[in-house]
């Protein structure tokens, strides 16, 4: 996980079916299928490769609810 406060996604690998919807909707090409890994379903699961801008498209589109998006909450204006 990135240690700075940039947004990132976490993927539940074992539920991923490799459908690539997340790959296709990410505007920054942050997600790829991991050709070096095979999950319990026997597919190459999705893998986060960096650059997330927290648009949330992948979270919306994943039919298997595999993706969690982590982002810093916007600071509230005090004055």
């Amino acid at each position, binding site marked *: 996980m990135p240690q700075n406060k940039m947004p990132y996604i976490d993927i539940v690998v074992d539920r991923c079916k490799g459908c*690539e919807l997340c790959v296709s909707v990410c505007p920054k090409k942050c997600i790829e299928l991991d050709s070096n890994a095979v999950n319990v379903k026997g597919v190459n699961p999705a893998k986060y490769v960096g650059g997330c801008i927290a648009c949330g498209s992948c979270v919306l589109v994943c039919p298997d609810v595999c993706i*969690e998006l982590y*982002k810093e909450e916007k600071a509230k204006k005090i004055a």
Partner: protein
Amino acid sequence: MQTTKSHPKSLFPVSTHYCGGCGHGIVHKLIAETLDELGVQDSTIAVAPVGCAVLLYNYIDVDCLEAAHGRAPATATGLKRSRPDCIVFTYQGDGDLAAIGTAEIIHAANRGENFTTIFVNNAIYGMTGGQMAPTTLVDQKTETTPYGRKVQNEGYPIRVCEMLNTLEAPYYIERVSINTPAKIRKAKKAILKAFTYQKEGRGFTFVEVVSTCPTNWGLTPPDAMKWSADNMEPVFPLGLFRDKGAEKEQTESGEKN
């Protein structure tokens, strides 16, 4: 650092049997989020269809009754009339709702039964291996229209929202899609509105979701999303058909002015 959205409470955190990239997973998620947001998981009874979503009860964590093919609106009528305090919804595909179940959906809508129907339209019969659906497009090839759907033999695709919109009673009818993230957001709004209206006891609410069937369309999931947008939406235009709640508000604010 916090997560924007955790796994919906009303959705079991399990793998589904749906094909990779199938629209059902997205729609289930939106319904589960809706039930969470309205706080009605504990008072909801779902009616599962015959079709790919027959095992809906393994994914959405609510009391659930399995209905016979097409009869979910009749079954839901019995449920809701008995338990008007419960949230009742049917979840039906294009065969279940628009083929064998045309009478049941029309008459439940016509009686203004206070339940919600989520109609998942992917222009094909998924579970049985890709036969023609009432919503299959003209010239679309399926297992039972191997030369493409021909108007002369098979007629035209049926537009259910438009049909139900001819009835007096239905309270809310909208057609949405899930083939882009932006449309998924709009679909969520529509589903939330439908269930909210039900919770407020307003009447029959109906959301048609233009979806995909990558497996039987022979397309990759991303291509299927595009096919849905490019080919299905011209035939099944997205949009609001009826919202008596909004009409009411307009009238009231008009009267105030």
